[in-house]
């Protein structure tokens, strides 16, 4: 008996059980920082130094060149078409998957991911094989004055294809988590279908929509492989910014190549900044203590 009662468990004040030793923490943090610096920061700095190596006038001349302007225009046009279509599809697919049971639902969820799973080059090739001028469909379209491959429509189509799943993948979990009870409440309060969709559903998944748009936009502007296959690299006509960078580089026009690359980088950084700003806005939650406080006030 006395033996048993003398067993003691020492509980010392100090760090919680899950806290790691200081040395370990410093090492892990340093390793993460080193990776970021080496693989992200250095290339980023390199792009801008290379772009400005021959001075600002050369930089400005490079980005105001007619061919450059055409590439910038085509890139922005492609993104402007791909992003809204992507969001529209994402909303429809996620709404259907989250709220209905239907035949082919599993196939749909699996197929949505296909464009991310296959190589972009193959995605581009599929369009060439399907719509190229030697194929029946492409030939028929060409006869009616509609050129798809080696023209702007092909670039836009290929971009839509590779960005296809981005908004949907973002929205499906959001829709599933949100459930349908708010929509039911709206219907019971007399709202019609449109009112329910625009006043309840869209605001409810707003952050998912915005995040999907950001992802889709980044990919649409940066896509190389699929677009490269269908573009035909016709200067001043079917070059997007990434394709144009490659052409300049192969022509040994490094300053111009890096100037366009820096523009693309700025667009990417702006997209990232927008994304993290949206995330931070979405993450703001009222602490529980405040809700408790209001309860006490009410009582």
């Amino acid at each position, binding site marked *: 008996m006395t033996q048993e009662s003398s067993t003691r468990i020492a509980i010392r004040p100090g760090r919680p059980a899950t806290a790691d030793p200081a040395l370990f923490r410093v090492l892990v943090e340093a390793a993460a920082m080193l990776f970021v610096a080496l693989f992200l920061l250095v290339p980023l700095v390199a792009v801008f130094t290379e772009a400005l190596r021959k001075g600002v006038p050369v930089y400005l001349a490079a980005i105001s060149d007619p061919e450059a302007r055409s590439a910038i225009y085509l890139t922005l046009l492609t993104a402007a078409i791909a992003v809204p279509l992507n969001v529209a599809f994402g909303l429809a697919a996620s709404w259907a998957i989250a709220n209905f049971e239907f035949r082919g639902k599993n196939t749909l969820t699996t197929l949505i991911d296909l464009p991310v799973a296959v190589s972009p080059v193959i995605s581009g090739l599929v369009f060439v094989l399907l719509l190229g001028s030697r194929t029946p469909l492409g030939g028929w379209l060409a006869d009616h004055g509609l050129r798809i491959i080696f023209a702007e429509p092909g670039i836009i189509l290929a971009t839509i294809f590779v960005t296809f799943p981005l908004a949907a993948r973002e929205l499906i979990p959001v829709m599933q988590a949100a459930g349908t009870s*708010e929509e*039911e409440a709206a219907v*019971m*309060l007399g709202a*019609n279908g449109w*009112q329910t969709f625009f006043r309840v559903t869209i605001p409810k998944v707003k952050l998912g929509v915005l995040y999907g748009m950001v992802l889709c936009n980044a990919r649409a502007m940066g896509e190389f492989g699929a677009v490269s296959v269908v573009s035909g690299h016709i200067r001043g006509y079917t070059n997007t910014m990434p394709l144009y960078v490659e052409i300049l580089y192969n022509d040994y026009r490094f300053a111009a190549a890096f100037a366009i690359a820096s523009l693309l980088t700025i667009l990417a950084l702006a997209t990232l900044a927008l994304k993290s700003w949206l995330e931070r806005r979405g993450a703001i939650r*009222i602490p529980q203590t*405040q809700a408790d406080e209001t*309860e006490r006030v*009410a009582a």
Partner: protein
Amino acid sequence: MSIRLSGIRKHYGDFVALGGVDLEIADGELIALLGPSGSGKTTLLRVIAGLEKPDAGIVTVNGADNSTRSFRDREIGFVFQHYALFRHMTVFENVAFGLRVRPRRSRPAEREIASRVHELLKLVQLDFLADRYPSQLSGGQRQRVALARTLAVEPKVLLLDEPFGALDAKVRRELRQWLRRLHEQIRVTSVFVTHDQDEALELGNRVVVMNGGRIEQVGTPDQVYHHPANAFVHHFLGSVNLFHGRVEKGKLYIGDTEMEMDATHEHAHGDDRQGDNREAVLAVRPHMLEILLTPNGGGEFPATVLNVNPAGPQVKVELVTAWGDPVQVEMGHERFRILSLAPGKSVFIRPKDEKLFVYQI
């Protein structure tokens, strides 16, 4: 408005959620749908609302088939179990929603909407929270906002799904009393779903006890509690001790104990009253059993005290019969002191009431 349900059936695959439900609800009633989970009570509520389409059967409101009307014309308010408040809208906008989505010609002016919303928020005592978002409210406050939002469209029927299910015991009791006063004020025909028998008995004018997709009994709280239609209702409305035995020549045998079943005994299945040598169940509530130290006049069975819990207004005593069935008895503190019960003590138990609830099985 009066509601009439006839022959409502609803299946989900092989699962029968509602197996033919008939019910009439009079204008201004406050009805409790009571049952265990999976008994079909929420499905029935959703069928009345029109959120669920029954496989068969008709819902008529004031004599008209409801399925042909639009939701706006049905004038049914529904308060969801988890409130379903619009999380991106303030409390004010939540309550105003039903008014804002009206077609232009019947939509009130902005000033009218504002005054109506504030009036409702005062009614639920939350006017000071009009600018908050649902995530900033406590559970009880959300519940009241949900109610105000529903009342804003002036429904003629109010349906509430587990209205107090997610709240703690104290808030539940307060809101229960508050809802009863509210119903007395506005007198709108109301149906609420609950699995809590205290809530159903305290709040409902009538209680509908459901089990397995069917209605077991409909009656006033007094009727269903004191005159349960069957063993299920008896069991579900408060705790009960069940003693298995058999009926022979008008007498009930539990173990070796013989009990008279004279005319005052109540039978749930009266048609089998004279049935001989049948298995039966005697149901007695814990406070309707008495404990004796010595046998006295017959009809009692021996038992051993297992545990005693004197905390609370009644002393709860756990016993076990000679043949091994557990028994719960509740008694006043005075009686408990006289008996001086302790675990291990051998005693006798006997139903106090002359009316015995015997269910044939």
